[in-house]
């Protein structure tokens, strides 16, 4: 096996599926251009031609309806948004059309459409280039929603999404693009709706979403030095949710913190917290805690950005609080490593 980064995993999944199935195509603003969506679409136009990899006008609403039309008439589109913030323009189609035509036609129409949405923090991206909006889409019946964390999960889940006969929204945190691990070269599927225990532990379950799993791993390393053991559960698919895996973990540990990279109020963390309270009420030793963005629009200046976004330090402090431990001195720990690495401008 060879190492592959997350962006490479996306590129490889799409390329292999396009080789396997001539009905698959990828399109969106900036898709075939030099910058190639952080490298995730690099080389695809050269390999498959401009009919299967193309740019679009800045018409997200129209181009989403276009994807729906292509999907219900036999193609398998992958629509890419370089920011989820721009995909808001597509929500009329996603929520009013894409999500419900299979149901309201009694299954006569199938919609094999993948919509990739880049999320995440950058370099003073501010209020319009940094949202996540998971719960805006998990709220809607008829949409599958995934947010893989690791390169190998991304390759297998994106492959499954492309082969799925239903609309799948794939959230990709831009900082994850740098992550690298062993990824099988051959095509493979990881079924949607199946979560994963990223790190086994016994004291507190951290349900991490997307980038927050990276922060949770760092927090787990820090806390392990003090003999505190975190179990990290990555749902991977947000809808349909692998509730059983989370419930099983929390029933074992008796404690849970949901670490979301999104706003807390009415966020996906609220859904997770509600379900865990409903299903694990008898075994919980403490109320479920939620971690997420500060409930303000994302600020630009770095000092406020660092306050806005939760990270491993936030998780450590919440775990200490939950377990009644004294706050440890974290001066020697390295936080914000990715935040320092990013050089912008986009």
């Amino acid at each position, binding site marked *: 096996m060879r190492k592959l980064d997350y962006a490479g995993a996306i590129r490889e999944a799409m390329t292999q599926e396009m080789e396997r199935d001539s009905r698959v195509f990828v399109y969106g603003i900036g898709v075939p251009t030099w910058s190639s969506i952080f490298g995730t679409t690099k080389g695809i136009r050269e390999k498959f031609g401009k009919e299967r990899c193309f740019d679009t006008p800045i*018409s997200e*609403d*129209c181009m*989403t309806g*276009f994807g729906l*039309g292509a999907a*219900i008439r036999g193609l398998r589109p992958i629509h890419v948004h370089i920011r989820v913030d721009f995909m808001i323009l597509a929500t009329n189609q996603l929520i009013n059309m894409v999500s419900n035509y299979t149901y*309201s*036609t009694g299954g006569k129409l199938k919609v094999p459409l993948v919509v990739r949405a880049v999320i995440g923090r950058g370099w003073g991206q501010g209020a319009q280039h940094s949202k996540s909006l998971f719960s805006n889409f998990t709220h809607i019946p008829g949409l599958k929603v995934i947010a893989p964390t690791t390169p190998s999960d991304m390759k297998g889940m994106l492959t499954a999404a492309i082969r799925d006969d239903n609309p799948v929204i794939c959230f990709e945190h831009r900082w994850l693009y740098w992550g690298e691990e062993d990824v099988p070269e051959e095509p493979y599927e990881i079924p949607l709706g199946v979560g994963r225990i990223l790190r086994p532990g016994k004291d507190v379950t951290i349900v991490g979403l997307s980038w927050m799993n990276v922060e949770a791993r760092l927090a787990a390393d820090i806390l392990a030095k003090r003999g505190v053991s975190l179990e990290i559960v990555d749902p991977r698919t947000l809808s349909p949710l692998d509730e059983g895996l989370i419930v099983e973990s929390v029933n074992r540990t008796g404690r849970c913190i949901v670490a979301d990279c999104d706003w807390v109020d009415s966020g996906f963390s609220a859904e997770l917290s509600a379900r865990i309270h409903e299903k694990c009420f008898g075994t919980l030793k403490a109320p479920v805690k939620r971690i997420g963005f500060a409930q303000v629009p994302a600020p630009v200046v770095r000092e406020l950005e660092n306050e806005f976004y939760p990270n491993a330090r936030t998780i450590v402090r919440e775990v200490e609080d939950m377990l009644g431990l004294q706050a440890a001195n974290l001066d020697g720990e390295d936080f914000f490593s990715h935040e320092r690495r990013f050089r912008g401008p986009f």
Partner: protein
Amino acid sequence: MNFAREPLPKATAIQLFKSLYLARRSEEYIVKHYPENLMRTPMHMSMGQEFVCVGVCAGLEGKADVFASYRSHAAFLAQTHDTDRFFSELYGRTSGTGEGKGGSMHLAAPDKGHILSSGVVATQIPVAVGAAFANRQLKTGRTAAVFFGDGACDAGVFWESVNAAALFKLPVLFVCEDNGYAVDTPREARQMSKSLSDAVKPFGADTYDDDSGDVESVYALAKEAAAKAHRDGRPAFLNVKCCRYLEHVGIGTDWNWGYRDQKTVEREWIDRDALKVQRARLASHQIGESAIVAMEDEIDRAIQASVKRASQAPIPAPDRLHAGVFHEKA
């Protein structure tokens, strides 16, 4: 203008008459029976403007994927003639187009080329562009036609869609059923441009204006526009003036709303009703009154039979509520 430059063949005249009659009589049945409260779905009636969908669908000879708005009845029946599934859906039966889950605004018979209709203004328009793209990629030989009202031309996605179709060289027929009103708001209160066609043309579409009120003109126009669109690889915009006889949604008239004058509408539209004109045209083809009545009776019997089958079809069982949110692999 009127695009029927010479009389159409007798067989075509009959075909158009029958299709118009089917749409009109199906809706007359609805008007009569809606108050029974057994068809519990909001209906946006086509009555008066059926000739647009009938002419276009006949002109495209089944070779197009058709998309429609919530004013869906005429488009669905013109393309499919499937009164069984139509009435079954309105009555909420398992034998309907969406097993009762779609209703009047979401009719779909993709096997017969009516792909879907949609309840939010203009949402169906870009879907047709994607369908045309799929048809080109898959070399099906089919094109795509989409019906919408002049209200949909207020929406940005209409302009986005014309631009995208032109840019991608797709032969989409954008058919504006221009009845002049968005509910009761006149076009002048919503659009600055005096002519939609003039505004659309620079986007790279061929444009056509039909104010004939005549199904044969629309038929000839659709044939001509589709052939040119296919030949030149560019979209066409058909602006067909028409008149909705009933209220925006529901089975009543709306003369008491005060936004349009009954006498004027009668003089300008109802007196030259497309169905009436087409019926008279059959006489000019030496078709006798008894033969015309026989055609009408046959269609009326078909509608009655469909209604009967619908009323005898099962209502979805409660467990169907949760079924079919996602498409399962067979």
